[in-house]
């Protein structure tokens, strides 16, 4: 038997204090298998030990929330006995080491989280951050990650309908791959993970267990250094074919009432699934590891418990239902094995070859996971930059062209054309708009889905950035006509043991809390990814937010495309002219300083609620929120999408560059039929909403009077070409 030395404890990522807790919980020295189990259960990835204190402060309730954080995914009520189930999760560390498999298994994992709860996945999204475009690894990473997401999602037959991609030097050594899945279930047929029923069989289904991914959760809880490439063997390999079969088999079994509880084997595999199920149910579990289907011979209990082989599930069945369930899994040619039973001991007892391999108390291990109040320091508040603080350019037309072809704003079509975004036949707003919209099959309803975060804002002012990320998802859903209902968050940060990083985390959470509260928009699921650092340099704080909203009648949906010549273009909201942290400042002045745009949540709520009301009345022909690149870019995007120009007259005291390129919050560009202008203005006046006529749709140029005139086709070309050009450089494949 391996002796547990200090070195072995350290290799398992446990601190001396944590190991002392292990000894006091057990009252003896753990064996290697037990130590491995403690190690993954208490890893940052599984235990949220640095973040829990702060996550608890987020609002998680609303009348439409059926299940908030803590289960495999969150659940909201969308009426008519139907529920939307969703979550976003990170797969950052594996994707940097092995981009194709890392991204693919990230997609596989998040889909399992959703169908474990009884939902059929109906849409996938992804939020990606890569290093600077000219970093030698960027092309290769983009190409591998996108192909991995496509390879998995396309085979599953779930449309990948949108997402976002940023490029910035802070991600040179740590890319972020955050995948989100939205599923649909009946409210009376949702499955949870709490094991129950003493003596009930514990069943393993899906793929066989191999030696892949051992200690993936521990890797995901540490910084990278120059030797991280050597961690390639800890990355799992995905098999979307098996997952598709697992999905269909699980849903088929879920249509019966044989399942008591079910949990997917994600990070930390059989260990975390069995402990979570036992802990939630307040019971014990006995597992006979000899019955675990294995891919390789000679696997030890340690390897079996820590393997992160993909496409596996653990279930507790009602007694006597094993054969019925077995038939379904055999039809789908999947492994099915009764590997244990639920007990009343409150202990996890593992046996193999007739010997006890581990005997651990469940509750202390799961509940007594360390929780830290890490020291943190507040990010110093930056200075607001007004138009007067930034020199005016000579040619605003050149500026607009440059921004449209810049890394943050250029079209992502090269990416989303590789995703099947139409399968299932319900995608009614494809990628490229404010939010994707998918119909709730067979109904008038549809879900609007978006992911957003502006990391440069979060870096400059975490609290403002956190609020802005939530507000932007809310606006994007609103711009389609949807009512935003809830969010999932994927909190990507550096090393929490550094007080300035912990300060970014706390700041972002505080901002998110303010926004969620002001917008009635709770957090229902999420994930934390810390230690996104290489050689001591952290990423920009990136709380990626995935928002979901409901359109009660999708025939009322709006898109951002300019529709008909003669429609009147209006600006909803006020231009502030703040230029700090804008794409303009970065691309034109080469500066990344100043305060991010001010988020006024009261205005967000008021302007958004007004717009949604106008859309519901059928008065709006196009809507688009203002974000990266400001009003100028918003107008260009609407013109490109509609393939028609507009003539705009800006009546403002602001300098033109500040009016056009400030990234004002709580603002939308909308278009209205001439006959409806007075009505729309009347409603705005009654509610004291700022609404200004700024132009008319028509012709083939985007013309801003006295400032610029550019043909829509030219805008379209620079917007379309940047990413394909980047990806056609040598070494990008």
């Amino acid at each position: 038997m391996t002796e547990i030395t200090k070195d072995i404890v350290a290799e398992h990522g446990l601190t001396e204090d944590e190991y002392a807790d292990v000894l006091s919980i057990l009252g003896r020295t753990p064996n290697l298998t037990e130590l491995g189990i403690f190690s993954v259960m208490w890893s940052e990835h599984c235990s949220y030990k640095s973040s829990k204190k702060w996550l608890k402060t987020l609002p998680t309730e609303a009348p439409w929330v059926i299940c908030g954080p803590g289960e495999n995914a969150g659940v909201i009520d969308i009426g008519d006995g139907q529920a939307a189930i969703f979550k976003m999760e990170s797969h950052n560390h594996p994707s940097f080491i092995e981009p194709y498999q890392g991204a693919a298994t990230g997609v596989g994992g998040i889909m399992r989280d959703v169908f474990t709860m009884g939902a059929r996945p109906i849409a996938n999204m992804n939020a990606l951050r890569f290093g600077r475009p000219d970093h030698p690894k960027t092309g290769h990473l983009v190409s591998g990650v996108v192909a991995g997401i496509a390879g998995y999602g396309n085979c599953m037959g779930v449309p990948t309908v949108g997402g976002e991609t940023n490029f910035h030097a802070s991600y040179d050594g740590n890319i972020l791959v955050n995948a989100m899945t939205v599923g649909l279930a009946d409210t009376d047929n949702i499955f949870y993970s709490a094991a129950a029923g003493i003596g009930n069989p514990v069943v393993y289904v899906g793929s066989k267990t191999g030696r892949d991914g051992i200690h993936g959760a521990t890797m995901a809880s540490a910084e990278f250094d120059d030797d991280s490439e050597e961690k390639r063997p800890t990355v799992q390999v995905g098999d979307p074919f098996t997952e598709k079969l697992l999905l269909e088999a699980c849903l088929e079994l879920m249509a019966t009432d044989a399942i008591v509880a079910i949990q997917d084997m994600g990070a930390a595999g059989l260990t975390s699934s069995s402990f979570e199920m036992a802990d939630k149910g307040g019971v014990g579990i006995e597992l006979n590891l000899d019955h675990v289907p294995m891919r390789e011979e000679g696997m030890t209990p340690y390897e079996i418990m820590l393997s992160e082989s993909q496409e596996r599930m653990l279930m507790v069945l009602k007694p006597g239902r094993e054969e019925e369930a077995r038939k379904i899994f055999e039809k789908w040619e999947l492994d099915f094995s009764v590997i244990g039973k639920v007990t009343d001991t409150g202990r996890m007892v593992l046996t193999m070859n007739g010997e006890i391999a581990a005997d651990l108390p469940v509750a202390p291990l799961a509940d007594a996971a360390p929780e830290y109040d890490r020291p943190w320091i507040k990010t110093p508040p930056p200075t607001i930059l007004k138009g007067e603080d930034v020199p005016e350019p000579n040619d605003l037309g050149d500026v607009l062209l440059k921004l449209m072809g810049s890394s943050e704003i250029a079209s992502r079509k090269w990416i989303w054309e590789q995703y099947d975004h139409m399968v299932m036949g319900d995608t009614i707003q494809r990628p490229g708009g404010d939010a994707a919209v998918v119909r709730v099959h067979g109904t008038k309803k549809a879900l609007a889905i978006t992911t957003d975060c502006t990391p440069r804002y979060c870096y400059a002012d975490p609290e403002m950035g956190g609020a802005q990320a939530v507000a932007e998802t809310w606006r994007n859903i609103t711009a389609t006509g949807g009512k935003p209902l809830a969010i999932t968050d994927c909190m990507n940060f550096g090393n929490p043991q550094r007080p300035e990083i912990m300060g970014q985390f706390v700041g972002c959470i505080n901002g998110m809390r303010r926004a969620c509260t002001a917008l009635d928009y709770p957090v229902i699921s999420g994930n934390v990814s810390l230690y996104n650092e290489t050689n001591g340099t952290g990423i920009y704080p990136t709380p990626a937010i995935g928002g979901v909203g409901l359109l009660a009648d999708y025939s009322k949906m709006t898109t951002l495309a300019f529709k008909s010549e003669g429609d009147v273009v209006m600006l909803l909201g006020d231009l502030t002219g703040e230029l700090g942290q804008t794409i303009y400042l970065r691309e034109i002045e080469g500066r990344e300083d100043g305060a991010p745009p001010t988020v006024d949540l009261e205005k967000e709520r008021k302007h958004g609620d007004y717009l949604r009301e106008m859309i519901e009345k059928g008065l709006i022909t196009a809507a688009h929120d203002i974000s990266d690149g400001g009003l100028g870019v918003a107008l260009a995007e609407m013109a490109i999408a509609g393939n028609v120009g507009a003539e705009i007259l800006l009546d403002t005291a602001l300098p033109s560059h500040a009016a056009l390129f400030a990234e004002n919050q709580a603002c939308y560009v909308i278009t209205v039929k001439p006959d409806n202008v007075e009505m729309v203005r009347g409603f705005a006046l009654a509610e004291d909403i700022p609404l200004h006529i700024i132009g008319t749709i028509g012709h083939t140029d985007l013309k801003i009077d006295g400032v610029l005139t550019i043909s829509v086709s030219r805008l379209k070309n620079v917007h379309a070409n940047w990413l394909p050009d980047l990806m056609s450089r040598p070494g990008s494949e």
Partner: protein
Amino acid sequence: MKAAVIVFPASNCDRDLKVALTHSMGREPDMVWHGDSELPDTDLIAIPGGFSYGDYLRAGAMAANSPIMREVVKKAESGTPVLAICNGFQIATETGMLPGALLRNAGQKFVCRDVDLLITSQNERFVGGFEQGEVVRFPVAHHDGNFYADDDKLNELEAEGQVAFRYVTPDGEQTDEANPNGSRNNIAGIYNKVGNVLGLMPHPERLISDELGGTDGKRFFDHLVNSIV
């Protein structure tokens, strides 16, 4: 009219095809599991898109050897119309029901987008609802849609009027830019010699209403159902 949709492990456009057929027929098609060895009585066999058997070995290769495909080939030989879309087209070439092969896309990437297609030859049953020379729009979504046949076979397909659809510009021009996958002669779909089997890479079942972005697919299915009835 009765139709049968064949379902393989990891077929994933089976539901979409069922929806499109149900809209046009006014009744649901039979969904037939790959492991079955008998087909129900049917007027149309439809083989859907997806990743049957995970595309392992080669797209369509394993499905082509499933028990149900022996029956499908027999029915096709006796004249039952067969519509094979995307992965279905790949399976149909693997069984030999249709000539040629579908190679990896020339761009090496999966491609999902609407494409413009020229109705190239007249086949009353499948495309009688369109004018010959009309340009219609269906989406493609595939990784292996690059149609290949050797020169002799290609000449034969062209001479016999077996080319059903070609990738073109919206104006009907056959250009390299309009070809999403490098298919020879921009071929998007072909008939067998007799004309009762149609294989095509694009998905007509995905554009069957205005909300989805077009109705050319609905026109296709409406006509197909009418012509079979």
